[in-house]
C-alpha cells in the first residue's frame, strides 16, 4: 500500500494510526498535568531522561508547555483526525454508495499537510525553549514573541495552521461528496445519521476553520513580521492593535469546533442505538433536524467564552439567550435516542456499549454546561476546573467513546477481522467509569474554586483542602491511561491473528455492510448500489416474514419488490430532494 495512495480507505488508515499515536501522546501529557496537581513539584517517575535538570519534576515553564500541548494535540492532532480523518474518510463514501471521495487527491494532500503539522509539533519538543506554552487558546499578547519568545510557539502555531488546512480540505471534500456523489436513490432522508453528523460538522469546518486560520496567521505576523494586530493597545508597547479582537476571532472558530468534535459522534450514537435496538431510529427527521439546528446555532453562541471580558451588556444578554437556546435541539436529540431504545430489542455489543456510554458522559457534560450559559452563574465557575470537567465530558470523554464506538463498529469492515468483543466491552465500560471519575473530580474541584492552569493550586489557601480530591482524580486518570492497554492488546492481537469477519457481522442494512465485502475493494462496490430505503430498516414485518431475518439492506429488494423502482427514475446523483 503506497503511502501516497488516494483511496479514501487508505487515507483513513493513515489518519487512524497517526490519530491513535497522537491520542497516546496527548494522553501522556494529560497524565503529567494530573501528576503535578496530585504531587506538585515532585519528580515524575521515569521522566528524568527528558527533564534532567529537575530530575524529572515539572517546572513552571515545562508545566505551561505541557498543558498547552495537551490541548492542541488532543483537539487538532488526535480527536478531529480520528473522527473525520479516520472514521469519516472510511465510512462516508461507503455509506452513501460512492466509489470514493469527490476529490481523492485532495484528501491525500490533506493528510500530508496534517502530517507535516504533526512533525512540527513533535519537533518543537526538542527545541531549547520547548514547544508552545501560551495555552491552547494562545491569547495574545502572551502568544506574541514579546512574552513567549522562541521557535517553539511559532512552529506550533504553524502546525495548528497545517491542521486547519487539512480540516478545511476534508470538510470541503465531505460536503461536496455528500451533495454530489450519493448513489441513485440515496435521498437526504435515507442518509445514515452518521453521514448527517459528518456532513453538518464538515459544513462547520468549511465555515469556521478559515476564521482560525486568519487569527493564527495574524498572530504569526505579529510574531515574525512586526505587525501589531494583537500586540498593541498594551501601554507597555504602544500602538493601536487590540488583543480582544483575537479572542472574538478565536472563539468564533472555537465554539463551533466543540460541535465539530461531537457532531460525528452524535450521528454514530443515533445510528448505533437504532442498529442495536433492532428498530428504526425514533424521529429520524427530528434528530437530523436537531443536529442541523445545533450546527446553525453553533456559530452564534461563542461569546459565552467571553462573559468576563467586560463586553457590553447588550452582547452579554444576547449571547446568554442564544447559548441557552442551543440546549433545546440537544434535548430533542437526546430524547430521541432514549425513545429509540424503548420497545426495541437491545443488544449490548461493544459499539452499542460505547454509544450508550457516550450518551451518559455527553448527557452529564451537557447538563453541567447549563450553569455556564447564564452570565450570573458563569461568573463563579468561569476559568475553573468546572469548565474543564464540563468540556472534557462532552468533547473529551464523549468524543473519545464516540471514536471507539465507530472503531469497534467499523473495524471488521476496515480490516476484515473481528476484534475480541469481551476485551472491547471491558475497555469501553472501564474507560467510561474512569472518565466519570476523572472529570467528575474536576467538576467538584472547580466548583470549590480551583482555577485552571495553576502549576501549584495550593499556593492559594482556599484551594489547599482540595489536594486529596485531586489525588483521587489523578489516580482515576492514571488507571484510565492503564486501561487503554486493553485496546492496544486487542488491536495488535486482532490484526495478527483475529478471525476473519463476515461482510455483515452486525446484521444491519447500511450500504457499507450490505453491498461491499470486508474489507471493501479499491472502488468499494462491485456495482453502484441502487438505494431503496432508509438506513434503519430493522424488525420490519415484511423482512421477518419473507426473509426470516430482522434486517433489510438499504439497496436490497424484497422478493416481489421491484428492484428498479428508483433506478427507473433519473439517476439521483446530486439531486437534492
Amino acid at each position, binding site marked *: 500500500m503506497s503511502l501516497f495512495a488516494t483511496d479514501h480507505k487508505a487515507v483513513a488508515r493513515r489518519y487512524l494510526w497517526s490519530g491513535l499515536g497522537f491520542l497516546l501522546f496527548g494522553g501522556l501529557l494529560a497524565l503529567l498535568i494530573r501528576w503535578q496537581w496530585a504531587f506538585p513539584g515532585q519528580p515524575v517517575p521515569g521522566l528524568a531522561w527528558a527533564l534532567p535538570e529537575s530530575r524529572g519534576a515539572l517546572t513552571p515553564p515545562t508545566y505551561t508547555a505541557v498543558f498547552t500541548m495537551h490541548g492542541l494535540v488532543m483537539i487538532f492532532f488526535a480527536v478531529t483526525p480520528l473522527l473525520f480523518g479516520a472514521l469519516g474518510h472510511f465510512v462516508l463514501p461507503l455509506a452513501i454508495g460512492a466509489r470514493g471521495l469527490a476529490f481523492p487527491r485532495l484528501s491525500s494532500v490533506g493528510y500530508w499537510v496534517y502530517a507535516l503539522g504533526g512533525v512540527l509539533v513533535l519537533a518543537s519538543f526538542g527545541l531549547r525553549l520547548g514547544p508552545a506554552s501560551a495555552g491552547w487558546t494562545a491569547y495574545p499578547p502572551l502568544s506574541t514573541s514579546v512574552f513567549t519568545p522562541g521557535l517553539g510557539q511559532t512552529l506550533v502555531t504553524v502546525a495548528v495552521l497545517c491542521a486547519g488546512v487539512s480540516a478545511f480540505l476534508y470538510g470541503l471534500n465531505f460536503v461536496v461528496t455528500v451533495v454530489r456523489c450519493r448513489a441513485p436513490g440515496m435521498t437526504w432522508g435515507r442518509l445514515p445519521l452518521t453521514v448527517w453528523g459528518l456532513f453538518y460538522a464538515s459544513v462547520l469546518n468549511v465555515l469556521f476553520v478559515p476564521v482560525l486560520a486568519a487569527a493564527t496567521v495574524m498572530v504569526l505576523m505579529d510574531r515574525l513580521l512586526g505587525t501589531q494586530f494583537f500586540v498593541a493597545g498594551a501601554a507597555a508597547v504602544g500602538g493601536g492593535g487590540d488583543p480582544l479582537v483575537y479572542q472574538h476571532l478565536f472563539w468564533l472558530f472555537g465554539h463551533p469546533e466543540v460541535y465539530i468534535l461531537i457532531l460525528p459522534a452524535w450521528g454514530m450514537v443515533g445510528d448505533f442505538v437504532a442498529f442495536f435496538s433492532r428498530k428504526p431510529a425514533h424521529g429520524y427527521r427530528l434528530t437530523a433536524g436537531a443536529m442541523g439546528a445545533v450546527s446553525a446555532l453553533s456559530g452564534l453562541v461563542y461569546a459565552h467564552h467571553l462573559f468576563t471580558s467586560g463586553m457590553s451588556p447588550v452582547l452579554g444578554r444576547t449571547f446568554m439567550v442564544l447559548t441557552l437556546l442551543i440546549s433545546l435541539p440537544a434535548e430533542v436529540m437526546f*430524547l430521541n435516542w432514549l425513545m429509540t431504545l424503548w420497545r426495541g430489542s437491545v443488544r449490548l455489543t461493544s459499539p452499542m456499549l460505547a454509544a450508550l456510554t457516550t450518551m451518559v458522559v455527553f448527557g452529564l457534560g451537557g447538563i453541567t454546561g447549563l450553569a455556564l450559559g447564564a452570565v450570573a452563574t458563569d461568573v463563579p465557575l468561569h476559568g475553573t476546573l468546572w469548565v474543564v470537567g464540563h468540556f472534557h465530558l462532552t468533547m473529551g470523554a464523549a468524543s473519545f467513546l464516540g471514536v471507539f464506538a465507530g472503531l469497534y463498529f467499523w473495524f471488521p469492515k476496515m480490516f476484515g477481522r473481528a476484534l475480541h468483543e469481551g476485551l472491547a466491552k471491558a475497555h469501553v465500560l472501564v474507560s467510561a467509569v474512569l472518565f466519570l471519575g476523572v472529570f467528575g473530580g474536576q467538576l467538584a474541584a472547580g466548583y470549590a474554586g480551583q*482555577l485552571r492552569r495553576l502549576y501549584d493550586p495550593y499556593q492559594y489557601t*482556599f484551594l*489547599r483542602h482540595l489536594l486529596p480530591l485531586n489525588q483521587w482524580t489523578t489516580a482515576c486518570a492514571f488507571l484510565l491511561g492503564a486501561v487503554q492497554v486493553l485496546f492496544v492488546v486487542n488491536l495488535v492481537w486482532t490484526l495478527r491473528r483475529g478471525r476473519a469477519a463476515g461482510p455483515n457481522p452486525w446484521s444491519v442494512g447500511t450500504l457499507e455492510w450490505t453491498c461491499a465485502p470486508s474489507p471493501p475493494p479499491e472502488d468499494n462496490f462491485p456495482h453502484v448500489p441502487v438505494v431503496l430505503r432508509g438506513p434503519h430498516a430493522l424488525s420490519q414485518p415484511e423482512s421477518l416474514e419473507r426473509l426470516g431475518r430482522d434486517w433489510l439492506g438499504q439497496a436490497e429488494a424484497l422478493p416481489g419488490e421491484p428492484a428498479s423502482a428508483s433506478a427507473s427514475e433519473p439517476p439521483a446523483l446530486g439531486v437534492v430532494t
Partner: protein
Amino acid sequence: MSDSSPRPVVEAPAGSPRGDASRAWTLSLPEDASTHGHRIDALLGWSHRFEAGLALVALGWLAVAVWRFRGARRAASDGGTRRSRAWVLGLALSVFLVVDGTLLVGSEGYLRDVLWNLEVPAKDPRTVRIEINAHQWSWEARYAGADGRFGTADDVVTWNDLRVPAGVPVWVQVVSTDVVHGFSLPHFRVKLDAIPGRVNQTWFQAAREGDWEVACYQHCGTSHYRMRGVLRAVSPESYATWLQEAGRQAERVYDADDTAANWGWEWKAP
C-alpha cells in the same frame, strides 16, 4: 507606599493542607463573603437541583430501557408515531422552558440589580474606588487618596494587597500593561478580565471584615500560579485611618518624574 508584605491569610488554617479534607467532597463553593453573592449561590443551587433531576431522569431512563428491553424477543418496527414525536418535542420544550428559563430570569435579575448596575456604586457617596493594574505577576492597586482624584501625589499604591471597608460598595477598574490577566475574588463572586488597552470595571461589597485571596484566572505566563494577592476587608474607620496615613506617606515619597510609577488614570465614567 504602604506596607506591602502580605500577612498570612487568617481565614484558612495554617496547618496541614489535609486539615480541611472533608470539605473537598461536599461540592461547596468557596465561602461567600460578599453582600450580593448569595443570589448567585442560590441560583447555582437551583441549577444543581435541575442538573440532578435531569441526570436522574436521563440516565435512569437509559438504564431502565436497557434493562427492560435487553434481548427482547420483538422490537417495534416504527420510528415513533406522530404522538410519540410530539411528546419528545413537548418534553424537550418544557424542560427547556423550566430549566433555561429559571437560569435566564435569575441571571438577568442579578445582572440588572448588581453585576451590570454601576449606578449603585456611582450613586453611593461612601463608595471606594480602586484602580488595578495587573502585570506579570502581581496586582498593583491604586487608591485616590484624600483629594479623591487619581494620578495625584497622594495616590496610595499597594502590591498584592487590597484593602476595602466592609459594608461599602467597592468599585474597581482593571487594566493590564502586558498580557491578559483575570482579576478574581473567589469569595466575592467577582471575575473580570484585565486586558491591555482597555479599562474594565465591576463592583462588589464585602459583607464582613476578614482576609481573602485575589487570584488570577487567565493563563498569563510561567508564574501565573503565583499571581496571588490578599484582600482585607476592615471596618470603615480603620480603613479611613489606614488610607489617611498611607496617603501622607505616599505624598512624602512622590516622584513626579517616575512615569512608570504614576500609571493612574482619570476615573472612567460607567
